[in-house]
């Protein structure tokens, strides 16, 4: 299927390993991306809170790009997804759309309200199908205990996310199982990573990050996996500080969802960019994958 691919700012900035691992998996999954190189940042909710009209206009421009191509927007970030969904919901109202189209007209864009926004996780479950994903698994991640960490905007508000798909808050567990790994059950899976307050109240943000990692660890997680690169910035990039804030050692590798998929599809830890991680992931993952392979044979 053809998609208008919107990687988002972090995949093109602070998380190059995410961008790289998505490239590895789209083709085998039968997803043909046309990257929207020119699309603006969604504003991550920050612009919406300053000026909703402004956020709606910038996102409508992106939706119009996809609409022209008759493709859904493929996102790989929970925050981009949530921000876009909220704008798109407002843009279903004809009055709102007309106001926005007036702003887009000088730049020759019109949005008719038809674009569908899908995070990769949703596309895998709803469009590609987990059966097909299972067929592509060359290295089942047997014995690996992976803690899902959704990122708020893939599951809340349910009025935007789950109206037609009430089980979206269970997809990550299903996908982890499909890849052969064991999903860890713990309360933190659906909590906030603390990133949105990290510049405003760093101590609180770090405690949030740390508590979720600790929760996953205490429930036996070998690693955590997230479909949101902003969560990753905190869970991986500031795990050392989170550990200090809690006064307890953590040391849990944090994988982007596409990395876990690519590993199960047979790619090496180096290929999925684990060397970019702040919490050492390449060594531990290599050992875990070896153990999984030994267990399987």
């Amino acid at each position: 299927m053809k998609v208008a691919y919107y990687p988002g700012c972090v995949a093109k900035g602070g998380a190059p390993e995410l961008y790289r691992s998505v490239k590895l998996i789209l083709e085998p999954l039968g997803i043909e991306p046309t990257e929207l190189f020119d699309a603006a940042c969604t504003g991550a909710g920050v612009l919406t809170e300053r000026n909703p009209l402004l956020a709606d206009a910038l996102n409508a421009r992106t939706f119009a790009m996809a609409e022209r191509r008759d493709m859904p927007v493929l996102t790989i970030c929970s925050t981009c997804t949530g921000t876009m969904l909220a704008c798109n919901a407002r843009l279903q109202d004809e009055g709102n759309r007309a106001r926005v189209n007036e702003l887009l007209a000088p730049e020759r864009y019109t949005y008719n309200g038809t674009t569908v926004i899908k995070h990769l996780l949703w596309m895998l479950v709803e469009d590609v199908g987990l059966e097909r994903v299972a067929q592509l698994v060359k290295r089942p991640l047997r014995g690996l205990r992976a803690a899902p960490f959704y990122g708020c905007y893939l599951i809340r508000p349910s009025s935007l996310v789950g109206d037609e798909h009430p089980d979206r808050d269970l997809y990550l567990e299903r996908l982890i199982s499909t890849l052969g790994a064991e999903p860890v059950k713990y309360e933190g899976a659906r909590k906030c990573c603390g990133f949105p307050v990290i510049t405003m109240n760093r101590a609180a943000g770090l405690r949030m990050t740390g508590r979720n990692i600790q929760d996953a660890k205490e429930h036996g997680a070998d690693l955590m996996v997230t479909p949101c690169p902003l969560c990753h910035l905190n869970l991986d990039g500031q795990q050392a500080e989170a550990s200090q804030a809690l006064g307890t050692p953590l040391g849990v590798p944090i994988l982007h969802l596409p990395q876990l998929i690519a590993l199960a599809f047979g790619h090496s830890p180096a290929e999925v960019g684990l060397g970019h991680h702040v919490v050492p992931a390449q060594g531990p993952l290599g050992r875990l994958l070896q153990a999984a392979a030994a267990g399987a044979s």
Partner: protein
Amino acid sequence: MEVHLRVQRFHPQVDAEPHWQEYRVEVPEHATVLDALLAARDEQDETLTLRCSCRSHICGSCVMKVNGTSCLGCKTKVSHARKRLAAGEPIRVAPAGNLPVVKDLAVDLEVFFGKVKAIEPYLQPDGPPPEREYLVPNEAMLTVREAMACILCGCCVSECNSLEVEPRFLGPAALAKAWRFTEDPRDAADRHRLEFVSAPGGIWDCTHCFACVEVCPKDVKPMERILELRRRAMEAGFTDNNGARHSQAFADTIAESGWLDETRVLSRSLRGLPELLEWAPVGMRALLRGKMPLRHRRLSGAKQIRAIFAAAQRRSGEPPREHAPGR
């Protein structure tokens, strides 16, 4: 039908730790979790403590966590609570989160109401009172009315992700209440309230997780009110804080290059050198791991994005800002 409950019990003066206790009760198909709990108490165990009054989601007394999610026990059907449980798995009932337990499911609301009182939840009109009632246009009250639906049950506070780690946070209920008065055309204490909620523990401590929006039984959408308070506070000039600086830096980088320059937004959000130094190890590690782009390139559509940006600002009356020519 038979309902299998697993209830968290705790008597702080007697028990060292909370423990779980199971009950099996017979209730009608349409029963709520509260009905089941009351049946357990009335028929089997009168020591089980819980609070309730109206039983029809008006009084807001029976906040609790059912299967880990905050709700009113009287608004949650047993049939609904069972939906995602495996066969034979009991419905878990625990006291509300972020509030101290008095006993079992009864929590202490003193801090909760203290925070609501702190935002001065009453009208403070300016000037002499009118001869008769205050008259307001109907449309001015339409949105205010949504927040007036709050019954102060505490579901939002129980579920709040920020409160779990920041007890100073005023929390969603008090801030939604602050918004309700800020929006009320009869009230004249806007600046005073906006200044108060802009301080640490106020609007900028909300982590934007939607948990309160999700559980509010009256659809008050507390988080969205908090975000509107942020806009009002910035408009009123309360911008000497990391939240407002972050917001401005974020908007500036998009206006200039079309997308987010993470490094720049971070450095412009912080207050001075001490905070920057606090962040230095994070930056160093990111740099060493190839996670910090040294050059932020403009998108090819940056000019177009800036034009739409400026047009939207003009249309919504936001004062335009001179943008440095980017890097």
